């Protein structure tokens, strides 16, 4: 499924048929997408799908093996000077000078960056690390390091922000604060490319997203589009007195019975769903059955993700 990228001006990020190999192994196998200025685009996917590889090519760490990438209209590898000053990045794993304090770390990176819109103190307050200013970075917890990393990525108010699993290891409150911070940046016009394993994060933040698997984009679009294409489902607890093969077909769809739950996967068309539900309820009263835990819902991002992960 492809959804047009929209016909606004020049994209902030443009990836065309990107391929990237490590030796003989092709980690990214022909990926294309565009991110418009001020948009947040999320890359989801299984472990090893190629998200970090893709984002690191965009960050200018290496030249692509095939295809082309552009960030703010420039090649991030050959024109690093132009791109670096206007981008911020958070690596999947951040390397810190462990013997520096939190404040010294922020001060150093603030000093070297050409634009300094806020003071070191403000930066630390934004990620709620002000009380840790005097602590050596080595002594921070995993989630605190992630927050420090986020502070460093955003301190120069970049136009494009690359965030590789920004909230991994954060507690729920810190994660929500991070979401707010990212939403504020997007509202102010920052373009964000983010990878995450938290589907809720993508649902909360992403304008559009792509689900990658084994080096390819399997699905892309807005959350609603990706989920809608997946259709609706009707579920209820498997009534003990009915054998699985005696369950009715709804709109020609046979149910799947798994771990005591009956599930019908239906088309995205609401009229179909309504018809199927009416048919199911009629069947239940015919057989004098009470369907427990009956639910009708559109697919969740998780359903879509799992289907992609199982090799759709």
């Amino acid at each position, binding site marked *: 499924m492809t959804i047009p990228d929209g016909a606004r001006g020049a994209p902030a990020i443009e990836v065309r048929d990107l391929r990237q190999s490590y030796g003989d192994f092709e980690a990214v196998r022909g990926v294309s997408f565009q991110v418009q200025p001020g948009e947040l685009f999320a890359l989801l996917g299984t472990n090893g799908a190629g998200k970090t590889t893709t984002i690191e090519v965009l960050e200018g760490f290496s030249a692509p093996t095939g295809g082309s990438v552009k960030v703010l209209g420039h090649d991030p590898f050959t024109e690093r000077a132009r791109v670096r000053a206007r981008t911020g990045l958070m690596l999947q*794993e951040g390397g810190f000078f462990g013997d520096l304090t939190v404040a010294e770390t922020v001060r150093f990176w603030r000093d070297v*960056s050409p634009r300094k819109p806020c003071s070191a103190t403000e930066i630390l307050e934004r990620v709620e690390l002000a009380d840790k200013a005097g602590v050596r970075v080595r002594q921070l917890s995993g989630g605190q390091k992630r927050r420090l990393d986020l502070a460093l990525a955003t301190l120069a108010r970049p136009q494009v922000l690359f965030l590789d699993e920004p909230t991994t290891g954060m507690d729920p409150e810190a994660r929500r604060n991070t979401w707010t911070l990212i939403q504020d940046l997007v509202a102010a016009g920052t373009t964000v490319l983010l990878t995450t394993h938290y589907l809720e994060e993508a649902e909360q933040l992403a304008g559009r997203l792509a689900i990658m698997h084994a080096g390819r984009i399997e699905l892309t679009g807005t959350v609603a589009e990706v989920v809608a294409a997946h259709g609706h489902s009707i579920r209820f607890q498997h009534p003990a007195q009915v054998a699985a093969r005696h369950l009715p077909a709804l709109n020609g769809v046979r149910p799947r019975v798994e771990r005591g739950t009956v599930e019908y996967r239906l088309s995205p068309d609401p009229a179909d769903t309504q018809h199927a539900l009416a048919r199911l309820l009629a069947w239940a009263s015919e057989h004098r059955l009470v369907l427990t835990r009956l639910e009708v819902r559109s697919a969740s991002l998780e359903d879509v993700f799992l289907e992609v992960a199982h090799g759709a």
Partner: protein
Amino acid sequence: MALSRPQSPSLDPSLLLGNTWRVARLDLTLLLRNRMAFFTAIAFPLLLGSVALLLRSGYVSGVSTGLYTLTGMLALAGFFVTFMHLTTVFTVRREELVLKRMRGSVLSETAIFAGSGLATTLVYVVQAAVLITLSITTLGGHLPRNLPLLFLGVVLGSVMFVPLAAALSGVTKSGESAQITVLPAMLVLAATSQASFPLTGMPELLQRIAASLPLSPVVDVIRIGYFGLDFTTAAPHPELGFTQSWAAAAPRLLLICAWIVVGTLIARKYFRWEPRHG
């Protein structure tokens, strides 16, 4: 991954200088905070130089043993301050993904290397001043006969080791193994540089090979600058005036520069910004 040469982020010279200085200042802070780094780069070289203070009688190569050894150890100190220390620094920073972060920032590759090199060079210059002061106060020495030449020898001697350290870090797996990978280089250079003893007993060919290895010209330039004697010829070394000492040292200075070029080429091939997978 070899050193790549895409366009550098700081083409602006004032930005490059500013960021080089910021990296140097950071490195100095870290050097004082890390016990291992402090020992390798600060304590050990000074300790080495102090060995000369025990040698209070006798003559080598036409000068007092104490001063001969002290000037040799002064040259050798650069090996520890810059080569050994930076090999460890670059290796640890690569493995801890600090180099990756630095490279992903607005810092140019030049500023990253120049900053670390500037920090160790500053430390080395201070150590040289301390050792020369010790030579005067305890070994009956004197101010260097050609101070600018000695200074240049110290600075170039340190700069030469920066790309060589970058190259060696590329084949070193961890901070601990850096202590081992530098060992062969240390043995070869210490034995062939005449830092602690003259090589007059060696066959001619070996002497010539020894004289062209990296540390040897640094030792010569420092001794020419200190004693005002021509250490590029066999003892007894002829005395040199100020201008003559520059002329005598010139080929040795050129050799150091050649090692800077060679080191940079090797570093481009072997230096890695990121840990190797698998």
